[in-house]
């Protein structure tokens, strides 16, 4: 195994990884006659913005104004993300730095809860939300996301790394728990909560509210866009434009925050 063959392998799989994305970018800028050309071509020959213009026309005619969908997504993403950071970090601090009855069990439970993801919990979530009479409100999306454990798990692992000596020193200086949390833990775990923001953002950004939100006015923008995509073959070009828009935002957010995410992941892991 030479370095050369490794590089080729990496390049090949890199290509496998990005080429559908290249495809979508190209498709978004193709005029209609190029989309249905035979044989199909990967690269666009005469790029146009028609698909995006069509998208705006479609959006402009929708029954609920698009601004309302956009507001819903921003509201859900902002509140959900903020909530996860606040609840996640406040729960992570005692779990990481204090020993209290049940703290070990709780940490274990959090690891186990990583083992089931959204679709498995969708059912109990639905039942709980309906018992709380929160179906068809923002809360049905917000509460499960705020209570998500992946972020809490990351925060917890990051906070364990903060030296105990710092906390001791603060205590000697007369700081209360809340001050320690706010003035010491939070600034030091900056990259952890930035990661939490990213993960929470990514999951909330793409949510369609399926199954828990039924009122059209409360639905997020990804739902509205998926309706456009589902409209069939005549909107193939518009669908690509939509996918591109939905894709660009999380990618940009990730690029901006990549180094923070990596440094958080370094402390992540299941300790023995």
């Amino acid at each position, binding site marked *: 195994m030479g370095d050369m063959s*490794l590089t080729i*392998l*990496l390049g090949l*799989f*890199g290509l*496998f*990884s*990005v080429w*559908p*994305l290249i*495809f*979508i970018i190209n*498709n978004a800028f193709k005029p209609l006659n190029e989309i*249905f050309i*035979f*044989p*199909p071509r*990967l690269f666009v020959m005469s790029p146009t913005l028609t698909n995006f213009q069509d998208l705006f026309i479609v959006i402009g005619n929708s029954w609920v104004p698009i601004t309302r969908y956009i507001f819903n997504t921003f509201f859900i993403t902002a509140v959900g993300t903020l909530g996860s950071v606040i609840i996640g970090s406040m729960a992570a601090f005692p779990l990481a730095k204090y020993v209290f009855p049940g703290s070990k069990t709780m940490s274990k439970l959090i690891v*186990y809860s*990583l*083992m*089931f*993801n959204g*679709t*498995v*919990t*969708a*059912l*109990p979530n*639905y*039942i*709980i939300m*309906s018992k709380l009479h929160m179906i068809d409100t923002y809360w049905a999306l917000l509460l499960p996301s705020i209570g998500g454990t*992946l972020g809490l798990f990351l925060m917890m*692992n990051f906070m364990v790394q903060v030296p105990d000596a710092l906390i001791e020193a603060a205590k000697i200086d007369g700081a209360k728990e809340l001050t320690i949390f706010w003035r010491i833990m939070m600034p030091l775990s900056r990259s952890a909560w930035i990661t939490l923001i990213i*993960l929470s953002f*990514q999951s909330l950004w*793409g949510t369609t509210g399926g*199954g828990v939100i039924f009122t059209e006015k409360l639905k997020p923008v*990804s739902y509205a866009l*998926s309706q456009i995509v589902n409209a069939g073959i005549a909107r*193939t070009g518009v*669908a690509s434009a939509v*996918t591109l828009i*939905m*894709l660009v935002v*999380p*990618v940009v957010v*990730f*690029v901006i925050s*990549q180094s923070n*995410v*990596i440094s958080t*992941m*370094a402390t*992540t*892991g*299941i*300790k*023995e």
Partner: protein
Amino acid sequence: MASMVISFTSFNMLEAPSFVGFRNYINLIVNDDIFLIAVKNTLFFALITGPISYLMCFVFSWLINELTPKVRAIMTLVFYAPSISGNAYLIWKLIFSSDMYGYANSWLLRLGFITEPILFFDNKDYVFPILILVQLWLSLGVSFLAFIAGLQNVDKTLYEAGSIDGIKNRWQELWYITLPSMRPQLLFGAVMQITASFSVSQLSIELAGFPSVEYSGHTILTHLHDYGFIRYEMGYASAIATILFFTMLFTNIIVQKALRRVGA
């Protein structure tokens, strides 16, 4: 937890749950042929995508780690992008489109392998492999990032110490130094990949349709989706969820045990 309790009841969201003991489980295993197909598909799927995606995460993060920081950042994005691309896997629907405008069909036609377009999603021999391919494409997610981070944090002095202690080649270095140093990330990654490979549902529903041809893309989770959100038989659906959860838990425990032996 609530799910487990409900799994022992008959509950349709309108009437109060009534206790039915193990009847849901018995019905699932004895009377529900489709559930057995779903179990078979899910296990098969997890058995293939789980290990391969885990290895992919590791091998690529390991290769990327040797690059210069700038190239590394770009390659990280390249591999990570599919998993954050949301619904972008719908692109695969266009690629495997069943008429001659689909990319896969058009190439095969031009290369002369086939004489008429293949109906990829209407033939049960194709559905499963395509789902696996797309799932692998999506699978370089959080665990991939965790591995990159873990590799970057391996103490460099350990390698020097290792070469004094008689470590000869890169493979020994990997086995005795690198892997043990990033064991927490390896365990974390295993949990994430196992969960992902067992919980394929949306992918199958969007690509192969629901229900898919001869249930070829039917998994435990699409079965759960059917009973939970279409038929609203919550008790039965909860029983499915409980079975799935214990399957994942069991797999996790075994894999964690195996991973603790790495480099030992």
